[in-house]
């Protein structure tokens, strides 16, 4: 296959992962919480996209945003807030529990609908799954959308963080939460705002993912989130930009390695079946050489990796 086509596909996958990383990075910045349940927010939004059937695209996207924001706020209220002062490992386990609870909830709804759990079809913005053909190259419109959405999300978040009062409070909270509270920053408001924004970003990710996957199932978003979290840590979790770049890098690498490795072979580096081994080996090497992350600033201290 054309190597340029492989690069285009890799950029597309990287852009989707970067988009997911923005939401994860924001919550980590404010709450110091690695949210494994973020993928299930994407799943909730994707089910909302599938739910209305023949609604106009704008309406179903609106419903997806609403569903993801409500789900993220509920998650924060019933799970994260009571555990806010708990040990980070407790919070981490709680996010795992929520992820599996939501997955199983999605699975059980199929029982009542007496339908298989292979998933529900999504047709929102399905035209963007078509490709532009330039010579022998094919670029799907959704690739442009993923890149655009990633850049707009990152840029928009930067504007909120630097140009608004709530953004300023978020930054203060992320630097030193206790001192920020002593100076009048309302913890609940800041955290709810961050969580709500991450919900919006999860809905955007759900829209982008569902265009190419064309369906949602109980595991939608979960595998992506695992990969993205690895990328975020490898990139440098302490800064939104380095975390996003890390996620982009791992998405890019997965797609490129998967394409370039042959289909058969008995050991790593000889077959794309072993692609995860190759990727995780690369991540280990990166963390050994640059513990603070591949894109972290020189001299930046290593973040506590829970």
């Amino acid at each position: 296959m054309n190597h340029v086509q492989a690069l285009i596909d890799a950029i597309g996958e990287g852009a989707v992962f970067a988009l997911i990383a923005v939401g994860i990075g924001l919550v980590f910045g404010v709450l110091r919480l690695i949210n494994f349940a973020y993928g299930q927010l994407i799943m909730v939004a994707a089910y909302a996209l599938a739910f209305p059937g023949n609604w106009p695209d704008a309406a179903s996207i609106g419903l997806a945003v609403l569903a993801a924001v409500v789900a993220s706020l509920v998650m924060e209220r019933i799970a994260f807030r009571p555990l806010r002062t708990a040990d980070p490992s407790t919070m981490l386990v709680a996010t795992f529990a929520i992820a599996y609870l939501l997955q199983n909830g999605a699975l059980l709804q199929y029982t009542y609908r007496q339908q298989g759990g292979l998933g529900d079809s999504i047709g929102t913005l399905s035209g963007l799954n078509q490709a532009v053909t330039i010579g022998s190259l094919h670029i799907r419109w959704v690739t442009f959308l993923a890149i655009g959405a990633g850049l707009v999300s990152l840029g928009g978040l930067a504007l909120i963080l630097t140009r608004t009062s709530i953004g300023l409070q978020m930054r203060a909270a992320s630097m030193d939460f206790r001192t920020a509270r002593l100076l009048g920053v309302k913890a609940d408001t800041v955290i709810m705002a961050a969580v709500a924004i991450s919900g919006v970003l999860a809905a955007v990710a759900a829209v982008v993912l569902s265009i190419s996957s064309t369906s949602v199932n109980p595991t939608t978003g979960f595998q992506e989130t695992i990969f993205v979290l690895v990328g975020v840590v490898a990139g440098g979790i302490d800064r939104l930009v380095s975390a996003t770049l890390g996620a982009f890098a791992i998405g890019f690498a997965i797609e490129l390695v998967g394409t370039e490795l042959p289909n058969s072979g008995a050991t790593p580096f000889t077959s794309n079946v072993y692609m995860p081994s190759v990727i995780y080996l690369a991540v280990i090497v990166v963390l050994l050489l640059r513990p603070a992350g591949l894109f972290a600033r020189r001299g930046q201290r290593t973040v506590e990796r829970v």
Partner: protein
Amino acid sequence: MRGTKRWGLAVALALVVAIAVAAVGVTTASGAQSAGTIKLAYVADFTGQMAPFDNPALTAAKLEIKNVNAKGGVLGKKLVLLQCDTQNSKPDVSKSCVDNLVGQGAVIGLVTCDVDAATAAIQEFLNKNLLTVSPCIGTDQMGPKRFGAKGKLAFSFGNVAQDEGAAMAEYAYNVKHWKTAITVTDNVIVYFKNIVQAFTSRFKQLGGKIVDAESFTAGDKTISSVVSRVNSHKAAVIVTSDGFADWPTEFAGIRSLGNNTPIMNSWAGDGTYWYPKGTKVSNYWYVTYASVFGDDPSPQVKALIAQMKAIHQPPATGAFVQGSAAIDGIVAAIKSAKGSTTGSTLAAIMVKFHNLPTISGKVSFSPSLHSVFGRAYRVMEVQNSKPKFVQLYTTKKLGTL
């Protein structure tokens, strides 16, 4: 603060109860055990990825049990079906299900339609020396090959992949005159892999050429590059065996690039539930056990579909007939064993089945193949998202793995 703690405790308790209820959802189709009954334990995935295949098979099995019981049962004993949902084939839940139902007196096990998904339940049944039957596992691994000596008690009424893959190859080469093929293997389960292997061996044997062989593992996030690589080759047909989450992505992806090459799938691609909303499904062929679209050539199959529709459980895929066929096979074995339900006795009879008539066709087993071979397939064609039965096709020679 105290109120918050109480509230938190209440939520935690609610979660624990919800998880506990979700963990083992056991239901029984009948009351307590009695001397005049034979209890069957159906441990399968009624909510997860295998549900489109397992649920219709379960419904058909229940209907067949009703028919058997209406005619006086098996040598005077009524069949009773106990069921338990493995919730997307979770191994721990599967084992709990088996222990629970066997504890309630079940003497024969039925399991989900894929050997990888069913392994935990199969092993648990086999460890209890019970005859273990799957309605539609489609590989030669349901037997001694995978489960060793204990596997002598394991059988499937599904078609073995060497037979199904060869049927696809023969139909492609001999009937459609497609001489070149691209294959796409999803490595996630052995059935998917075996179908493509059997197709490849038989297609090459017939003189066909595989111009490109792609593979991925469902969920590995490489499906878009697989689609791009498939699109960069020219062939008369694209052949796969897939029905899980990446399958609609693969199909829609290939078509979104303007590639209208015929695509051929195994029984895994049966049903319409996966049809992408934004893409017409056309130039698509697959083989299956029965057509659920009202045009199956068998009046018995049509009658069974009508029965299932009458109870508002229409089948999503053709595998439903296998639920009925599995019950027929179990009944035939128990009758031959003069009422014994001992696993080894029933298995010794079942392995000698040769052209046993069932609703899904004639069933044969052999010491090496505990899954069905030589049964006629329904070849289906889909154009403009409308599936239709094309013809029956019986494999002339098995493929190899």
